[in-house]
């Protein structure tokens, strides 16, 4: 059964069957990644452009690797955000790229809705690699894959997303995806970092990190953006680390086995102590490996749609 959409713009509204298909397909590719020769000819002859309007080394490398392992021709197109105002418009850039006959576009952009905009102006399959504070669907998928791999299921699991929910594209994709798959989702963080209407998405809000640890099977801990405007939303890094940071003491105190995910890069000593970041409960590096498999699955499923 093929996917029901020819683009992956977000996980909002993506049917359970599609998510299931992507996760199951990723299992196959995960196995490919363990082979001595990690390349399959599946997307041979397809051209994929990685259109990055925002710096993101990790996501871009992960996509690029996935593309190369599927034998697609991968082209990187990085546009510094400073040139947006003076240079070519997003539309013109896209039209130019399309004129070079590309099959798929992986787009990262600081503006929410940029991938939707692309679907209106070009024919290629569009994959959202993160748009503003909206969605980052492949991250949501790889998080779900990693949780499922470890816990054997998603349905009925209690997952809490911890940190700056309001300025995160990872949070929404996790919320939409996990809820579709039957998990119970909550968010935890300072109230200044929780969108005012988040509960209307069927998500519980927790302000106490100990409560979050006690009540949940999984914590998906987001990176606190120290370099951006988000820094204005809490008093100090020290205070954040003390009241919302996850440390070994805190886990021990609550005496609970809880699975820890983090999309990276980690601020050690802020949202996670080094002990937790390297500890037994975390699967942070597995997430990275799984990310390649998930992206292979998405590219394969979209690239081979009739």
């Amino acid at each position, binding site marked *: 059964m093929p996917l029901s959409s020819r683009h992956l713009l977000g996980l909002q509204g993506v049917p359970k069957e599609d998510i299931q298909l992507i996760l199951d397909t990723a299992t196959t590719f995960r196995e490919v990644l363990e082979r001595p020769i990690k390349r399959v000819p599946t997307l041979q002859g397809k051209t994929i452009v990685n259109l990055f309007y925002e710096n993101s080394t990790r996501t871009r490398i992960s996509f690029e690797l996935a593309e190369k392992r599927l034998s697609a021709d991968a082209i990187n197109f990085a546009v510094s955000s400073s040139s*947006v105002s003076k240079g070519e418009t997003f539309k013109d850039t896209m039209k130019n790229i399309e004129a070079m006959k590309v099959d798929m576009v992986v787009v990262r952009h600081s503006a*929410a*809705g940029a991938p939707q*905009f692309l679907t209106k102006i070009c024919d290629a399959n569009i994959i959202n690699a993160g748009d503003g504070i909206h969605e980052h669907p492949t991250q949501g998928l790889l998080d779900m894959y990693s949780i499922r791999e470890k816990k054997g299921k998603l349905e009925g699991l209690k997952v809490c997303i911890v940190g700056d929910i309001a300025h995160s594209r990872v949070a929404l994709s996790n919320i939409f995806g996990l809820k579709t798959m039957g998990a119970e989702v909550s968010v935890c963080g300072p109230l200044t970092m929780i*969108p005012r209407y988040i509960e209307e998405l069927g998500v519980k809000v927790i302000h106490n990190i100990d409560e979050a640890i006690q009540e949940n099977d999984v914590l998906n801990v987001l990176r606190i953006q120290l370099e951006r405007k988000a820094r204005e939303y809490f008093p100090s890094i020290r205070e954040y680390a003390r009241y919302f940071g996850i440390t070994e003491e805190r886990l021990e105190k609550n005496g609970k086995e809880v699975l820890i995910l983090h999309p990276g890069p980690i601020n050690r000593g802020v949202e996670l102590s080094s002990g937790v970041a390297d500890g037994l409960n975390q699967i942070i590096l597995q997430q990275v490996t799984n990310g390649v498999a998930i992206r292979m699955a998405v590219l394969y499923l979209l690239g081979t749609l009739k």
Partner: protein
Amino acid sequence: MKTILKNVNLLHPEQKINEKGKDILLIDGVISKIGGLSKEDSTDAKVFDFSGKYVVPGFFDMHVHLREPGREDEETVVTGCNAAANGGFTGIACMPNTEPAIDSAEVVEFIKKQAANHLVDVNVVAAATVGRKGEIISPMAELREAGVVGFSDDGFAIKTSAILKRALEYSQMYNLPIIEHCEDETLAGGAMNEGVNSTMLGLPPIPSIAEDLIVMRDIIIGEYTGGKVHIAHISTKRAVEMVREAKKKGIRVTAEVTPHHFSLTDDAVKTYDTNTKMSPPLRTQEDMNEILKGLKDGTIDCIASDHAPHSPEEKEVEFDHAPNGITGIETEVGLALSELVHKKVLSLEELINKMAVNPRKILNLPVPKFEAGQPANFTILDTEEIWTVDLSKSKSKSKNSPFDNRLLTGKAVAAVNNKKMFYQDKFVEL
């Protein structure tokens, strides 16, 4: 030249005129006779049959951005007036956020010169502060002498309470209103209304309290100074409630609402269509319900388009990067008739008050009269015509409207003023 408007329904709530099936004789654009036309009157007269149509006092839109001087690629005084005539308006007030801003008599004179001899009367709203910077009040006495009808830093609220207080003190010497774009800058800066939709769309939110706080400030300073405050494009429930309360207390505050705020909610943003991005942003159903209530009970005095032309290269971009504003003067009457009159929020008489009478009163302008010897200043309405908005036929230089292809019931079929009539897509000399 003699012109006969045949078999019309005359409706003028202020003059308490409601007459059906009359013929109107105009001579050189002046009303000569209403009804009782003789055979002689018809001799050599150009006859326009408007059977079943309403002749009402010419509509007036008190919130229009003409973009000239500065952005003539988006709109000029003349193209904006053509669009206004096409939308059924005989008068408009244009906003001062041009480049340069309208903060001197010279710019006012320039705009008046550009608008000379047009069917549409152009009245100018000048900046409330020099360069709309919110630092020093504009030369209001001189601007008034040049003919301005009000003051506004539209695009922003007047920056500080202290400057607003001075502006209200100074302007009341001339009984001119301060027209306020109510938005607390420190809370605004987002791309859409804060709500479940902004959360799901990942767009930076603007909370409704950004508007509420400035409306509250303005009412308080308005009461204290006794100046005239006019709330432009009111959009939140709380703001409507506050204006209602203020009016009850006898504070001199008036308010306008745009057609998009009474016909769309922030659900329309879900497509990331940049033609749903404006300031104030589209709000929720709850806000819209209160706006409809405010229109009905008289809290909201008038309807104004906030016609804001933008070039396609500015609007066909990422949602975050698109400028605020939509065109609206050509869809305004159709939306008002469809959403307000046909849905029984307002009677046709009430709508005429909100589109012809009240805006002129707020700006101290005379309301056109239906009597012999008065210049003909009419809007002619077909309240039942069903039509589809087609932006390609718009007279505006810009086409940034979310209402393309929208089915509407009722439209302005003609506008008459200054010895001209706009009818069937062209200007006719009377």
